[in-house]
């Protein structure tokens, strides 16, 4: 995965489609990140009442018929929107390429929770008579649903599935796409992640009863990773799908190249259901750096995972400190402070929002970081305002999840 390898052993990003609570394409999203624009607001959730969340306002009818919307899931709609936008961005005409050589690999935190809750709510109105349980339930809740809806919408006949990887899902969807390209399983990989978790009261209630659901009188101030006053997660929906191609193919068709995926790693804590493990996070970052053939000092931006939980943020910072030192060369930022935790989409969205830095040399900030928690001290946080830097050659993107799944992706500015 390094420059000395042949172009059919290198994988590049040639298209990006996304929807986030503060933008429905990369340009809008990037502008929001540079301008400090949050996407968090008050919403009403069944049984919960008013909670804080990030919702997306893309137009699902841009790429779907009303009937498809009625049949499918929110995650499916998000995935279709992102996939279509990504292919358009990559200037790939779906009608003129071999759809049997496209793979769809989407990371998810969970899927089916929303649909199951909805069905139980529905039959409750009929005294739990299961004759009122929808025949659409099973195709909606199968784990491959979001990726499968993409193939139905686009007529893609290559492989499709989701990768259940908790909140590391977005990174892992991308990593899996890279792996399938290197294995020559497909010629184009649509890799990334999606989440519809804001439709589930259970996700909110779970965080709340765990003491990890963020609250602030001003919704836009609620998600505050690494701040002393952080008090939990803001649940959001979203999606981000990358078009991934082997460099040889991208060069042949003259594609725009956002960056080259030069390193990645996935490992497991094997220690706890929810609490992170610093040593395993260190190992994960070190393995990604090793595979990229670079040292910590080569990284220019560290896109942190930090969700706003007391324990999780502190452990990540300690892990970063161990790998990069207390005063790293790399700038550090965090995207969740703007959009909340987009769960399965988080890793992909957080990477996407940083990729324009290769060209504009601006590092978007972390917002709501008013009083840096001493446990999270690192000297190079970019706080509240973007920072202009001389160059950005490497971005490292952390994404971790429950059950102790860690993932790291390293993307390099493309140089032929």
């Amino acid at each position, binding site marked *: 995965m390094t420059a000395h390898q042949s172009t059919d052993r290198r994988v590049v990003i040639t298209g990006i489609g996304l929807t986030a609570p503060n933008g429905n394409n990369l340009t809008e999203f990037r502008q929001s990140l540079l301008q400090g624009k949050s996407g968090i607001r008050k919403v009403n959730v069944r049984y919960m009442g008013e909670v804080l969340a990030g919702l997306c306002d893309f137009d699902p009818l841009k790429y779907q*018929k*009303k*009937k498809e919307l*009625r*049949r499918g899931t929110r995650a499916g709609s998000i995935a279709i929107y992102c996939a279509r936008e990504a292919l358009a961005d990559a200037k790939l005409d779906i009608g003129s390429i071999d759809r049997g050589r496209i793979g769809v690999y989407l990371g998810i935190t969970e899927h089916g929770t929303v649909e199951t809750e909805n069905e139980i709510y529905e039959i409750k109105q*009929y005294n739990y008579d299961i*004759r*009122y349980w*929808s*025949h*659409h339930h099973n195709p909606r809740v199968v784990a491959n649903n979001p990726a499968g809806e993409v193939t139905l919408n686009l007529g893609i006949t290559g492989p499709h599935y989701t990768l259940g990887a908790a909140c590391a899902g977005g990174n892992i969807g991308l990593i899996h796409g890279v792996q399938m390209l290197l294995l020559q399983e497909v010629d184009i990989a649509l890799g990334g992640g999606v989440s519809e978790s804001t439709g589930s009261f259970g996700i909110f209630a779970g965080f709340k009863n765990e003491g990890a659901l963020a609250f602030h009188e001003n919704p836009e101030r609620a998600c505050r990773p690494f701040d002393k006053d952080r008090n939990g997660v803001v649940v959001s929906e979203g999606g981000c799908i990358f078009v991934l191609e082997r460099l040889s193919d991208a060069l042949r068709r003259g594609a725009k190249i956002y960056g080259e995926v030069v390193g990645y790693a996935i490992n497991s804590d094997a220690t706890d259901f929810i609490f992170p493990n610093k040593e395993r996070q260190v190992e994960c970052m070190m393995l990604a750096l090793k595979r990229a053939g670079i040292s910590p000092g080569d990284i220019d931006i560290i896109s942190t995972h930090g969700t706003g939980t007391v324990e999780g943020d502190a452990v990540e910072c300690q892990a970063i400190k161990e790998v990069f030192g207390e005063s790293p060369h790399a700038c550090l930022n965090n995207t969740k402070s703007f959009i909340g935790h987009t769960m399965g989409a988080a890793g992909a969205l957080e990477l996407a929002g940083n990729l324009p830095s290769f060209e504009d040399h601006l590092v978007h900030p972390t917002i709501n970081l008013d009083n840096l928690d001493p446990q999270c001290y690192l000297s190079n946080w970019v706080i509240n305002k973007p920072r202009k830097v001389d160059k950005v050659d490497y971005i490292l993107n952390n994404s971790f999840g429950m059950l102790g799944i860690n993932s790291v992706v390293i993307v390099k500015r493309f140089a032929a």
Partner: protein
Amino acid sequence: MTRDQIKSVILEIIGQIIPDEDLSNLKGDIPIREQVELDSMDFLDIIMELRKRYGIEVPENDYPKLATLDGSVAYLEPLMKNL
């Protein structure tokens, strides 16, 4: 309900299930599925809506009787006349 009212109800339900389709020229004596995109899962939605709205239970063996609009009205008339 009168036959016309039953027909309106059926068309309204179908319109809700396949909202992208134009139902204005639907012929009463030709199978609905030959005229518009309505698959077996959509058909089950019609059965479900009749159950939810009117408590009507259509046995699976009777599904073919609902193939056309006219057939549906004839089948449902005795079940809905007192609604």
